């Protein structure tokens, strides 16, 4: 009797669980097939589409409710099959270019990826029948697609350089295109690459920040300054007003890249400016020319401000180490540092008077800061001299007391 009750209960429980779930014969069947079919199902467990309740049939069509494979995968039931490489952009675009459909899941999600893709070098070549170029799954993967915000995703900002490098560092794959394959190696050693890949600065630019992502293309010569200007707007603005803007355009030189290079861009130092070895100015401006003199003047002005800032810093550190309260002077010193940054930025106007104007303001504040440091050190000396005087009085009082003690001891017979 007990066994009967138990059997009924088990039956009811399993029936309940089956009734409560939506039937998906794709999953049930593919799980039992060979390793690659099973892997597809396994990958979908973490897929971003699955998280929004989408299943195999939402992309591949068919009827997942029918257990008969011939029926469920019948084209008459809407089964589309596996898209070919040629079909993939449009295949994904059926949903991703459909604003009304996407809004149901993620209203803020962009729907212009397909449109942009057709403008990209990848998309244009794809249209011409080149099947080696990247399309959606090349970067995002398939059956296990993760959102771009997931650090495991190949399109997570810090992973993008390596994702692009999978193709662009492959000499064999790139052979037919006549483009270099050392971009990733250069980028890795650049100021941007070190920030993103070594220090984990998520705001540091990766490939897509300059080239675009779905609309990826090499920026034209005239666009370079605008691209750098996305993050360096002040430099961009100054360069646009500078005497370099027109000749660069006429000579076909790509703005910022002309002096700073691109994939292997390094942290700029003052040595880039001026006429010494290592400066970029002397590669175009010959000795005695106006540009040569301007480079000398701007570098000289910046060095002057640096020297004053360093002098102020030395004084403040000395005074602070001696225990003087220097917080206001340190605040001013920080502001001098800001003027130095502004002066360095101002060189992009390539106008010595503009740089000198900023430098003058910085130097004036540096002078005040130096005075504060000197005043603090003078005050320190005055305190020590004062203490010496105090010590003399104290010793005199001590000697007087000692003599008095001797005197009263003698009188009291102690």
């Amino acid at each position, binding site marked *: 009797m007990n066994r009967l009750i138990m059997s009924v209960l088990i039956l009811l429980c399993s029936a309940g669980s089956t009734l409560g779930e939506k039937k998906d014969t794709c999953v049930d069947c593919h799980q039992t097939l060979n390793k690659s079919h099973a892997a597809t199902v396994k990958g979908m467990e973490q897929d971003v589409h699955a998280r929004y309740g989408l299943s195999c049939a939402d992309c591949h069509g068919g009827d997942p409710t029918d257990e008969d494979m011939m029926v469920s995968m019948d084209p008459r039931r809407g089964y589309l099959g596996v898209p070919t490489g040629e079909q993939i952009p449009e295949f994904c675009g059926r949903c991703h270019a459909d604003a009304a459909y996407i809004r149901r899941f993620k209203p803020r999600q962009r729907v212009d990826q397909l449109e942009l893709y057709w403008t990209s070098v990848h998309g244009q070549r794809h249209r011409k029948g080149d099947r080696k170029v990247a399309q959606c799954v090349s970067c995002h993967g398939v059956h296990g697609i993760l959102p771009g915000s997931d650090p495991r995703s190949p399109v997570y900002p810090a992973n993008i350089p390596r994702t692009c490098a999978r193709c662009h560092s492959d000499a064999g794959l790139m052979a037919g295109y006549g483009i270099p394959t050392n971009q990733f190696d250069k980028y890795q050693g650049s100021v941007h690459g070190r920030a993103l890949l070594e220090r984990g600065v998520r705001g540091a630019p990766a490939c897509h920040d300059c080239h675009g992502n779905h609309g990826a293309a090499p920026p034209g010569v005239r666009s370079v300054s605008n691209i750098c200007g996305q993050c360096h707007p002040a430099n961009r603005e100054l360069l646009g007003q500078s005497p370099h803007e027109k000749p660069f355009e006429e000579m076909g030189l790509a703005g910022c890249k002309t002096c700073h290079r691109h994939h292997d861009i390094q942290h700029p130092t003052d040595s880039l400016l001026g006429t010494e070895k290592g400066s970029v100015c002397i590669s175009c401006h010959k000795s005695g020319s106006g540009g040569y003199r301007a480079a000398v003047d701007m570098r000289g002005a910046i060095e002057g401000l640096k020297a004053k800032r360093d002098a102020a810093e030395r004084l403040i550190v000395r005074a602070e180490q001696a*225990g003087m309260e220097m917080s206001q002077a340190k605040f001013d010193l920080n502001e001098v540092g800001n003027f130095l940054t502004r002066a360095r930025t101002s060189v992009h106007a390539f106008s010595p008077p503009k740089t000198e104007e900023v430098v003058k303001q910085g130097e004036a504040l540096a002078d005040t800061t130096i005075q504060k440091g000197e005043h603090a050190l003078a005050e320190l000396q005055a305190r020590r001299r004062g*203490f010496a005087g*105090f*010590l003399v009085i104290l010793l005199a009082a001590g000697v007087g007391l000692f003599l008095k003690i001797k005197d009263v001891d003698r009188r009291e017979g*102690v």
Partner: protein
Amino acid sequence: MEAKTRSKVLNWLDERLQVRVALSFLARKAVPMHRHSIWYYFGGMALFLFSVQVVTGILLLLYYAPTAEAAFESVQFIVTEVRFGWLIRSIHSWAANLMVAMVFVHMLSVLLLKAYRKPREMTWVTGVLLFFLTLGFGFSGSLLPWNTLAFFATKVGTGLVNTVPVVGHHLLVIQRGGEDVTGATLKRFFGLHVAVLPILTLAVLLLHLLLIQFQGMSVPPSVQDQEDRMKKMPFFPNFLLRDALGWLGAFGLVVGLAVFFPRELGVKADPFAPAPAGIRPEWYFLFMFQTLKLAPSHILFLEGEMVVFLLFGLCGLGLILVPFLDARSRRGERSPLFTALSILMILYIVTMTLVGHLVKPA
């Protein structure tokens, strides 16, 4: 002529205040001279440093603003703009540390020399209360500059009472004036530091000093058998002049420390910033802090912190009750157990303070 004027002034004062009674008392007061007499000077030294604190504290009050918005800036103003403000603030800070050290030495010397024994039990009790009040001054005063280190040290320190069963949380809120250390805490600590503690200290101190005057100096048990033939030094002026010489030296030391090692002001407290590494209390709380750090998370079924906190509370109570617990000393017998316990306590405090100071913070 001079003697005549002095006599006239004395007569005038005596008619109104009976000063001759006090003067004749002072003239009779004598200090026993033996090999432990040096320890008699530390109480006076602590008293002198307390006076320095009162004077410098009043001067600091002229400019100090006890609000979270202005406290740090007002201290900054004192040390940078006010004439000799840096000196006054540094003296206040250094003298506070020296005063705590002197109170420690004075109390421990009294403990080891068994000066608490009958009939000086109440002198001891008031002395221990003064010791606690001194620590209270140190704890409340350290928050007043409202800098980062003081802020977080106060946060940790005040948070400890939360471990007390039943009333812990209420005590925490009373201390802080809310759940967290805020401007309300600063105001409470300021009030405590400049009003409540000084009044209590003055009252207990007056009683402590009166008891010493009534009972005279205690002679340690080890030399008590020689008391009858022991030489005595008149308190006034011989002993007092020696005291004054010590005070002069202490004052010179404090000023020297203030000139050569002015106390840092640090960075203004930011309640929203994460606690910086290496937060430590003042050195005189370090032995307790280190014990708490070494305590396991649980002792039996109780929280480790709570057990340590309650143990320290019991130790404090035990310290007050020493004269009543040490029955052998009360009867005038040798009391090796209490000597051993006292030495153990001193060794524990010194070791834990050194460990706390030398161990690099995580």
